[in-house]
């Protein structure tokens, strides 16, 4: 049945590995003309990799890409994809923050040139914004860096749908609704239906299963780098879709986490921080030995709040007071975590150098012992701690960053969405480690974009636009509550 319709793109046998990690194994995927295809799967299932191959931002290790039935050569890239009418709206926004909305639009459209190109580009994007998001309120000459994250997402979406010389035939939307509020999200999905009806094609990923079920024609489910289901959307309901994705964390483990009794307020306060942009005096408060969750949509000031606490280590200021040393577990390994020229051992010991000094020099035996202890404790997969850190897979590099923080003298550990690229088994191990360390008196402040991870916390703060908008006790924590607070316009919980 699916073969009957004409295909805008078809991928066959797509394979892609990152070092030792196999992100995609022999995946087939096709998008029909006039079809909206939903792509779902857990984090790390390979959705983003597949999208990057299709958009031409990554080259596959093997497999064939056909666009409108024509096989593409090995040099298939962004430029070629663009010329063929394939546009991609990435999860990590790809607008240049120092340019205006109109100038960002020009980047897509070479034909906007000569006198008045800026005005033409502004007109082009304004019309598209009006069409997709009526009442958006975004001035086309505004600098992108000054826009809120949701507005930036709207510009990104509208830009992908604009047309000048080459037609837009397939638009890939990677988690487009995660940073849009409910109204704009609905506007976008409605527009997608209209676009598809007029003969365009869409590939949509979302963690909001309702969007996928309601707006897609067909749903492809991915798991562990492969496709596990490919059926018409009407054949799925919420339960069967969740079942197809594979409930990666077993019910029993989740129950075990939920049975941990939340502690709150029985020990002295060790961190008190009012976010810089907070309009009232609401503060994040952590007592010794607590695990505090920071939730909300990505990029709403959580990392900034963590850094604010980090900078205030051992100090008492008007808006932030932190008693004792602080260590940070970075989530963005490449820019915030890994010292790429160094061995695993040195990457672990860097936060604890003072404790390793004997007679003025760093004691090499003690350094190596520290690294080996943590290799056993959190099972860093390496034959030798003297190997370079880049010899490890991403998940194991992340374990090294955990070891760096947990092996230090810090009583307060900040975690900046640290589970990116970490597989499920490791996650559960780390959850248990965090729980054990908290019981031993360490305090954790844990920013996470995965709502289920909040089950590990004693108390949760939800942030939006740089402010704490909800303060949720463990007993009251539900997914709906967190999402609602993340999206609500105006007012506090």
């Amino acid at each position, binding site marked *: 049945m699916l073969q009957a319709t004409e295909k805008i793109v078809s991928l066959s046998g797509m394979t892609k590995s990152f070092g030792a990690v196999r992100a995609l194994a022999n995946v087939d995927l096709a998008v029909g003309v006039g079809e909206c295809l939903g792509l779902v799967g857990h984090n790390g299932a390979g959705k983003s990799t597949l999208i990057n191959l299709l958009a031409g931002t990554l080259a596959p290790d093997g497999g064939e890409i056909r666009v409108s039935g024509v096989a593409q050569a090995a040099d298939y890239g962004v430029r070629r994809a663009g010329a063929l009418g394939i546009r991609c709206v990435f999860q990590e926004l790809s607008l240049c923050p120092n340019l205006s909305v109109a100038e960002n639009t020009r980047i897509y459209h070479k034909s906007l040139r000569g006198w008045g190109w800026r005005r033409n580009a502004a007109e082009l994007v304004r019309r598209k914004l009006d069409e997709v998001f009526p009442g958006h309120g975004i001035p086309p000459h505004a600098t992108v860096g000054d826009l809120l994250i949701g507005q930036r997402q709207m510009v990104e979406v509208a830009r992908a749908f604009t047309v000048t010389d080459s037609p837009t035939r397939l638009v890939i939307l990677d988690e487009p609704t995660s940073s849009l509020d409910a109204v704009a999200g609905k506007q976008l999905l409605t527009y997608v239906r209209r676009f598809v009806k007029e003969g365009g094609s869409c590939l949509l990923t979302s963690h909001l299963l309702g969007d996928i079920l309601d707006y897609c024609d067909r749903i492809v489910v991915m798991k562990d780098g492969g496709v596990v289901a490919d059926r018409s959307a009407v054949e799925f309901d919420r339960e069967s879709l969740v079942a197809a994705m594979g409930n990666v964390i077993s019910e029993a483990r989740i129950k075990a986490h939920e049975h941990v009794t939340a502690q709150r307020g029985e020990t002295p306060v060790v961190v008190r921080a009012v976010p810089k942009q907070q309009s009232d005096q609401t503060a994040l408060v952590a007592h010794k030995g607590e695990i505090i969750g920071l939730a909300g949509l990505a990029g709403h000031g959580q990392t900034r709040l963590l850094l604010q606490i980090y900078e205030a280590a051992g100090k008492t200021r008007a808006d932030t007071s932190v008693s004792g040393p602080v260590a940070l577990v970075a989530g963005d390994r490449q820019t915030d975590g890994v010292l790429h*020229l160094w061995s695993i051992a040195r990457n672990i010991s860097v936060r604890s150098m003072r404790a390793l*000094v004997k007679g003025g*020099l760093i004691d090499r035996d003690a350094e190596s012992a520290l690294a080996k202890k943590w290799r056993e404790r959190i099972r860093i997969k390496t034959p030798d701690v003297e190997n370079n850190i880049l010899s490890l897979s991403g998940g194991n590099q992340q374990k090294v960053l955990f070891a760096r923080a947990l092996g230090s003298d810090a009583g307060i550990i900040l975690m900046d969405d640290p589970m990116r690229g970490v597989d499920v088994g490791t996650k559960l191990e780390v959850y248990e480690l965090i729980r054990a360390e908290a019981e031993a008196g360490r305090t954790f402040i844990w920013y996470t974009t995965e709502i289920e991870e909040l089950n590990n916390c004693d108390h949760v703060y939800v942030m939006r636009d740089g402010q704490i908008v909800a303060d949720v006790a463990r007993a009251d924590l539900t997914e709906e509550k967190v999402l609602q607070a993340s999206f609500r316009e105006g007012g506090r919980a």
Partner: protein
Amino acid sequence: MNALAARLGNKPWLLSFAGAFAVWLATILFTEGKGGGEMITAALSFATFTVIVGIGQMFVITTGPGNVDLSIPSTIALAGGVAMKIMGGQDSLIWFGLLACIGAGLAVGAFNYALIRLLKIPPIIATLSSSLIVMSVAISYGRGLQIKPPPSFADFTTAQISGVPVLSICAILFAIAMAIILERTIYGRATLAIGQNVRVAHLAGVKVERARCITYLMSAAFAGLCGALLAGFSGGNALNMGEEYLLATIAVVVIGGTSVAGGRANVPGIWGAALFLYLLVTMLNTYGASAGIRLVLTGLIIIAMITLAGGDKPSR
């Protein structure tokens, strides 16, 4: 070939020593074995000065892209003048003179760091502009007069033990100490971490500004010490005696296998490269190359060495 490259990758300083040896060999083949020993003695003598300032420059470059100390030549000139004036040709004042030249260096270093930190001027501009100021101070301070070193100081800087300059032995010990500081102290590790990624280093608890401050102070202090030693060695201070050390320090750092992108430093390589640079010029002189040819060849050979040493391969 690949195995060789891998081995060189582990020990990049081997290349600079191999280069120095090859150049030496090429020269004595030409002279049919005459003057080989004297050449080594001379190379050790002159390389000593390059090594002292080169190590300071190495620490600066290791703190990451954009970090370089361009004030070394003027600091050498100023500190040489200060040392000679304070020693005043008297043996009893040698130690005061040495303290004073290091003090002058520290003052320049503090000024450099203040420009970089407080006024947020890029290091390349900060040290370049401070070098102009320092040179003016040196000119007005010494009024261009050459002062002779105290006899004992001159003797010490030119003394040899069976053909090996005493100063070179000191500089070898100095290099060993600096290598230990680099690899085994909190300051050294901090410097290496900053050079890889300042943000990561800061988030890993490294005291970034402290390490950077020490580095600029150290580089200038070494230049100050070098100024006094050079003045002793060459029978008096001169305003232009630091001139050649601007390019020389950067060249020995790079040829010696230190990463220009920061985060990876190599102390033995500084010695190998300093010997190589001196022997290279000697070889070209022996071959009777004219000044023009000599400069062109020196440039080309340095480029070849850096290419061989691998420069900076992206680690990913």
